[in-house]
């Protein structure tokens, strides 16, 4: 066999290697019909080639043996058409020329001859069904069952051999008529492509940073209404906390630790277009003032996506500049495949039950008409478990995709509906998506367009905190009352008003506590969120090595919220005639970009991939109106804005209005496929920087990767080895409007600007500098793999908004300025093993480990070295950033103790317990996280399970402290049964306290929202069986129109293997930054089981 590698015209290429200006590429494009002014005077044939290459930028490729190098050419200098020129050379040289795709293929004059051969893999095993194609011709064939092929071709033609899972190979046909073509497998990831920033596909091995990938089935196998929840435990360094809003609520995603004083959620990007994931509101108060208003990500349909790439570090996200500081989650949508037509249907049904409920006492009732249950002994039932229903969520989706050589079409529809574990909580979601790609001019020009429309309605979305929370009344109801009676009679007729009013034990209706069924039926809420995204773009492959692409996307998130509060609602929450809130918010994003991509071999060993582009992003977010009958309604229970008593609660606002314009460039220089240098740069101009020193910032990155296993000959058992390092800077834009404070008007009264720059401060974006090193190894034919990364990032110029001294001359409530820094360093290790791999039985194991150490390095001294992310208000919980401490510290009060641990009591009538001032109680950040993923396949069966563990960190339960002070908790009952609380205590004068401490006195002092919250701090360590599935793939070869079918049993959050806190510490009451590590009457976590059915035609 005598094929030779294709020789490239390297002289020419070296010239312009690093100049990637557009004009250069313009001039480099010529057509075969070009007029040339050339001549040759007894020139050697190879010199002739060089001259033509220089003049045309075309390149000759040839097989050395075909060319008689002594041959000389004589042609007079004159203008000739290129075709004529080549014909004249043919006449003098016996060589044939063929111009294809910017190359001139040279061959000796042969006639088409029959060529036979065999295609094998690297082990010599035949590859049946491999495709063989003559480049530039219509000749094509496939190999037979033994890998053999036969076709007619001229010598000098280029044969392309391709087979799924293998690297496509080009073979220049020479004199040899019988070939053995060995294809290299793709599976060792050497050629595997990964989608990176801006949707640019890169060879995975060349990456200089960590990029985790999840396949589409990871998102749909054991589904969750919010697709991002399915990432939990699967990717190192990504911590997901499910929000408190139940199904369809938002989640908090933190990649490599919190790096900002405000706003730590990553950027989501769908098919290269940033998604403006506007969040309307999030709770930041124990009272539960803020609700989970939803976001765009929670509306997406997991079935629409092929997979996800998570870019963790700054080097990976550097091309997103001022949007890249918190990591980026890239989603790529499913695309139809050419030549395939399929219909897929899937359906799943999941049942959810409440788990990890608090424990309640059943031995003591309440004194008549008392709010709290500190009365006489009684025998009671625990009514709480009966309050929670079995939730059911059903989702079905239908997809159609069809692909021809010219057009690819796919359409998906999904519907999710169900009910939650609290009565009245319903969800209904519809997702539509349509995608069309048209390929023109032999795939050179692709035009694509697509759109998704997602709409979700949630009735009575669960809330946390004290207000409007049915859980509170359920837990705290004065014991001895009949819960069922109050369920059946949540309202009673008030003769004096001629309307129905709330019914609940006397004196127990407070601002916090109401009849749960009154809240469910008479304080109803509706959340209606709709997300539309439409896009249009093209992709033009100008030459083999130059592609020009452009995209435009419009997206629109509308959120309508409505809450009706009937007369009879607790008067602090709604006035005598009831209340009404109607909020209508809209977020719009326009995005356009143009990217030129180059991929060029520079000589034998050097390869250059480069991108040059520009983008513009315009965002208007949370723009809308809020109507809030703060002072009540004129006529009872008439819920319309015309019935408001006054206009004082009605506002119009815009969260963000900004534009970001950017230019960016990236280049990856590869040397001999084992050394890669990666450089990127992005410059962002932002409208939010108006009135500052400069409105632009530059974000660079540099990275280097070595494929050790290609560079050196390593022992046989090492199949792959890579070492990488990178440094990058990314940023975070400052919020809109801060640099241009304006007054607003509410209810006819002018309000001074809420925030403005601190005098003397010039605002600038946050800047995060991150250094990362990593290594990746695979052993024994990829059976065992390990990837490890270490990173160290410092985020400076934190944008801080702190209460301005009220004495400031502008009337600002808050000052905004840049100050302080946060450091995060950590280690991520991903291990995977193909433990068993036989034809019938496969067992793959994955283990992800991540440890992040955060440190608030600096908070300016004039802020006292601290920033309270959640103020205490009147409660004994606050959440603060403190210099020299990890990100986010829970603070509260402790019982005052002497140095041997005795509780110190006041020498007063009640022997009251002494309390400390504010003390640090812990940080909710885990020490490290572990995920253990198993996938097993046996014949037609498959199974998987995921164990997710978080180790370390602290959480507080205000639920427990409330239950204690109200005398409903099991602890409060047990203490009464025991005759009191057994405490070791002394009086402040040193005399010891003897006997048991009265339970009521103890728990009313230590419990409640203002008690000694240090008693309600728990270790957050927990290990749970996060996902489980067991399925069967039906073998339906006998039914020709069914391509595949499977059924599976799935489970999510099945049980805790280990947990110390009395609630699920993986639920965050707020997906904002504050209000972390605390449970205040939150929805209990749910365990879900279900069945999935999939069928593809």
């Amino acid at each position: 066999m005598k094929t030779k590698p294709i020789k490239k015209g390297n002289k020419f290429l070296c010239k312009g290697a690093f100049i990637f200006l557009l004009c250069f590429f313009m001039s480099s494009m010529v057509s075969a019909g070009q007029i040339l002014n050339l001549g040759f005077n007894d020139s050697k044939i190879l010199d002739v080639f060089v001259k033509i290459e220089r003049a045309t930028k075309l390149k000759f490729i040839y097989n050395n043996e075909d060319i008689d190098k002594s041959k000389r050419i004589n042609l007079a200098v004159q203008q000739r058409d290129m075709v004529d020129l080549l014909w004249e050379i043919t006449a003098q040289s016996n060589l044939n020329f063929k111009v294809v795709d910017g190359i001139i293929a040279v061959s000796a004059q042969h006639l088409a001859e029959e060529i036979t051969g065999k295609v094998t893999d690297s082990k010599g095993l035949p590859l049946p069904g491999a495709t063989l194609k003559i480049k530039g011709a219509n000749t094509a064939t496939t190999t037979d069952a033994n890998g053999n092929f036969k076709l007619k071709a001229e010598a000098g033609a280029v044969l392309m051999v391709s087979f799924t899972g293998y690297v496509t190979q080009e073979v220049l046909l020479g004199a040899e008529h019988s070939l053995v073509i060995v294809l290299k497998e793709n599976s060792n990831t050497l050629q595997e492509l990964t989608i990176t920033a801006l949707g640019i596909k890169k060879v995975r091995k060349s990456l200089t940073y960590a990029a985790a990938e999840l396949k589409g089935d990871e998102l749909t196998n054991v589904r969750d209404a919010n697709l991002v929840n399915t990432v939990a435990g699967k990717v190192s360094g990504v911590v997901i906390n499910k929000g408190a809003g139940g199904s369809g609520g938002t989640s908090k995603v933190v990649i490599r630790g919190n790096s900002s004083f405000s706003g730590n959620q990553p950027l989501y990007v769908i098919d290269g277009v940033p998604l403006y994931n506007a969040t309307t509101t999030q709770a930041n108060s124990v009272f539960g003032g803020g609700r989970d208003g939803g976001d765009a990500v929670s509306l997406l349909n997991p079935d629409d996506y092929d997979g996800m790439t998570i870019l963790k570090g700054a080097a990976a996200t550097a091309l997103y500049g001022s949007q890249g500081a918190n990591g980026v989650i890239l989603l790529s949508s499913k695309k139809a495949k050419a030549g395939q037509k399929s219909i897929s249907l899937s359906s799943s049904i999941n049942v959810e039950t409440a788990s990890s409920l608090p424990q309640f006492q059943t031995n003591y009732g309440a004194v008549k008409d008392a709010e709290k249950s500190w009365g006489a002994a009684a025998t009671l039932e625990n009514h709480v478990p009966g309050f929670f229903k079995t939730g059911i969520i059903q989702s079905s989706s239908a997809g159609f995709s069809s692909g021809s050589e010219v057009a690819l079409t796919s359409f998906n529809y999904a519907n999710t509906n169900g009910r939650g574990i609290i009565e009245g909580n319903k969800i209904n979601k519809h997702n539509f998506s349509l995608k069309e790609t048209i390929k023109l001019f032999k795939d050179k020009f692709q035009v694509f367009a697509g759109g998704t429309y997602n709409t979700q309605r949630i009735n009575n979305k669960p809330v946390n905190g004290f207000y409007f929370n049915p859980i509170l009344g359920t837990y705290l109801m004065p014991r001895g009352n009949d819960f069922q009676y109050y369920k059946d009679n949540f309202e009673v007729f008030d003769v004096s008003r001629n309307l129905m009013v709330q019914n609940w034990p006397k004196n127990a209706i407070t601002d916090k506590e109401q009849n749960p069924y009154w809240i469910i039926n008479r304080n109803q809420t509706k959340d209606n969120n709709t997300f539309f995204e439409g896009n249009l773009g093209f992709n033009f492959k100008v030459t083999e090595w130059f592609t020009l692409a452009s995209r435009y996307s419009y997206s629109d998130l509308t959120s309508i919220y409505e809450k009706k509060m009937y007369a009879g609602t607790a008067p602090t929450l709604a006035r005598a005639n009831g209340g009404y809130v109607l909020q209508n918010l809209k977020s719009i994003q326009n995005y356009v970009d143009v990217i030129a991509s180059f991929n060029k071999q520079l000589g034998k060993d050097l390869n250059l991939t480069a991108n040059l582009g520009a983008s513009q992003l315009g965002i208007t977010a949370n723009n809308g109106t809020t109507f809030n009958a703060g002072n009540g309604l004129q006529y009872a229970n008439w819920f319309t804005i015309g019935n408001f008593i006054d206009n004082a609660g009605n506002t119009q606002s815009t969260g963000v209005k900004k534009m970001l314009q950017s230019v960016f460039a990236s280049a990856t220089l590869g040397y001999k496929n084992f050394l890669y240098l990666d450089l990127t740069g992005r410059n962002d101009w932002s409208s939010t920087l108006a009135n500052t020193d400069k409105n632009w910032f530059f974000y660079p990155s540099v990275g280097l990767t070595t494929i050790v296993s290609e560079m050196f000959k390593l022992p046989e058992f090492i199949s792959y080895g890579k070492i990488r390092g990178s440094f990058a800077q990314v940023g975070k834009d400052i919020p809109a409007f801060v640099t241009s404070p304006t007054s607003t008007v509410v209810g006819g009264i002018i309000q001074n600007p809420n925030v403005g720059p601190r005098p003397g401060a010039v605002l600038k974006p946050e800047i995060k500098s991150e250094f990362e090193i990593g290594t990746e190894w695979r052993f024994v034919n990829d059976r065992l793999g390990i990837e490890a990364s270490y990173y160290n990032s410092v985020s400076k110029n934190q944008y801080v908004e702190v209460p301005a001294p009220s004495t400031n001359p502008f009337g600002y409530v808050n000052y905004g300025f840049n100050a302080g820094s946060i450091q995060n360093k950590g280690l991520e290790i991903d291990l995977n093993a193909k433990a068993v791999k036989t034809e019938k039985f496969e067992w793959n194991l994955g283990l992800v480990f991540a440890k992040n150490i955060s440190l608030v390095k600096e908070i300016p001294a004039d802020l006292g070295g601290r920033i309270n992310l959640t103020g205490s208000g009147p409660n004994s919980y606050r959440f603060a950033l403190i210099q020299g401490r990890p990100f986010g510290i829970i603070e509260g009060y402790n019982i005052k103790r002497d140095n041997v641990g005795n509780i110190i009591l006041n020498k007063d009538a009640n022997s009251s317990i002494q309390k400390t001032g504010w003390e640090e109680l812990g940080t909710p950040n885990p020490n490290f996280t572990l995920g253990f993923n198993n996938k097993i396949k046996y014949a037609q069966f498959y199974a998987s399970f995921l164990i997710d563990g978080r180790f370390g960190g602290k959480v507080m339960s205000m639920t427990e402290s409330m239950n204690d002070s109200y005398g409903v908790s099991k602890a409060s009952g047990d203490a009464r049964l025991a005759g009191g609380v057994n405490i070791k205590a002394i009086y402040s004068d040193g005399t010891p306290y003897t006997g048991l401490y009265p339970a009521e006195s103890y728990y009313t002092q230590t419990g409640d929202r203002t008690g000694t919250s240090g008693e309600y701090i728990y270790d957050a360590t927990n290990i749970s069986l996060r996902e489980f599935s067991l399925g069967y793939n039906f073998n339906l070869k006998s039914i020709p129109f069914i391509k595949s079918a499977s059924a599976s049993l799935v489970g999510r959050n099945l049980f805790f293997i280990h947990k110390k806190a009395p609630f699920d510490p993986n639920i965050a009451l707020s997906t904002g930054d504050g209000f972390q590590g605390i449970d205040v009457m939150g929805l209990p976590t749910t365990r879900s089981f279900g069945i999935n059915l999939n069928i593809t035609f």
Partner: protein
Amino acid sequence: MKNILLKTAFFGASFLMLAACKKTLDPKNENPYGASSELLSQDFNNIKSLFSPMFNNVISTATSYQTQQGLQGDVWAGYMGTPTDFRGGSNNTTYDLVDGWNNTCWNLAYTGVMANALKIEQRAKGKYDQFYALSLIIKVEAMHRIADSFGPVVYSKYGTTAAIIPYDSQEEAYNAMFADLDNAITILTNKINAKEASTFVGTDITAYAGNYTKWVMFANSLRLRLAMRIVKVNPALAKTQAEKSVAHPVGVLVANADVCKVISPNVTNPLSTISGSWDDIRMSADMESILVGYADPRVAGYFLKSSAYPDYKGIRTGIQINAKSDRVSFSKIGAVIENKETVWMTTAEVYFLRAEGALRGWNMNGTAKGLYEAGIASSFEQRGVSGAATYAADNVKLPKAYVDPVSAVNNAAALNNVTIAWDAAASNEVNLQKIITQKWIAAFPDGQEAWSEYRRTGYPKIFPVIKNTSGGKIDSATGIRRINFVESERSGNPGGVATALTKLSGPDNGGTRLWWDVAGPNF
């Protein structure tokens, strides 16, 4: 073919880029619903619109009133009591000062009043001086209340953009306020003398409706109030300022039509909500003791009868509260707050100020007894009740003992042993107690002013707290003397607070007496 493709591609790309570049960056970066200065300059709204937040924030017309004054002066002056066990029963009422509440008055005064007054000064001073003068009067009305709560305040140096915003001592602030009032009175008096038509008519939401004469009367009366406040610490200056006010050609408030009150078009007095639907405030034990003891006919307007006990029932402040429900049935606040009015100063108060001045031998254009009885008559007239003369002549009735029907530990004998009738034979101290007690009744529900006068004079005597959770910072017998500096200042302007601490006579807590708060007898 290739050329066509190329052209298409580049045309497409350039088109998209052009479309993109056509939109340049917004150079303003402004909230689209905010007001630009051009917009506000129409109708002189850049000046006039700033008065609305000032009127609405001196005494808040919104429910922020509750933490601005409702749980401070109103309870510490013995006007009202709360049935609610806020913060587990440890809060302002038990002398555990809640920073999260007490910052309200400070913040509203600065962001609602001072910031707007500064803008008015910048935009109107020298050009539209009447607006500047009016803003000064409102500013003093707002800020003396703040100074009377905290002591040192940012007043004369307000407006600096330096890193440290320095505080005035309370004395410096008072002197600056006297100067501001003098300035305002001069400007407006000149306008009155020149018979200039008022340009404040549509903007003024007080009962004065833009009348400059009434505003000068109010400014004079305010100067009289401040003068009396400093009588123990600087009697000479007090006399000068007081006599200047009374002698001024326009004079002080004399008729009921002169009562200074904001009539906010949109909102009912927030006490209506706080007492009504929130059930957070009730009659105090002191009010019950004095009004019921005196059989004062004004009580029917001030309070509602208890829904569970006979007649009126008040709550003592600073007691152990086990459950809110225990005392929710006590007397709610009455018809006096069921309107859109927020009173800044009553005419009766001015008569009582003059009565005290006369008692001190100042020239107050009347005798102490005459002015005292005029004050009672004025208050009766204002409240729409008759029998002032009989009431003022009563030398028998005394305040009664207090009984808490829920918990007898809160019971107390009456503290004030003075009758109503003026007693020329009695000591100045006794007659002052009568004057201040009547002023205290007349000024209801403005607890802030009543608390200040209580601290200055010690009258009327108020039931001391029984439950004191101040941690030793505030003595139960002496009672609370001030509010500590607010959190946003301690963290946002620590350098300024440091200047304030040197101007305070003790530690920054509620037990430290203010500059004008001098211990000892009044004479």
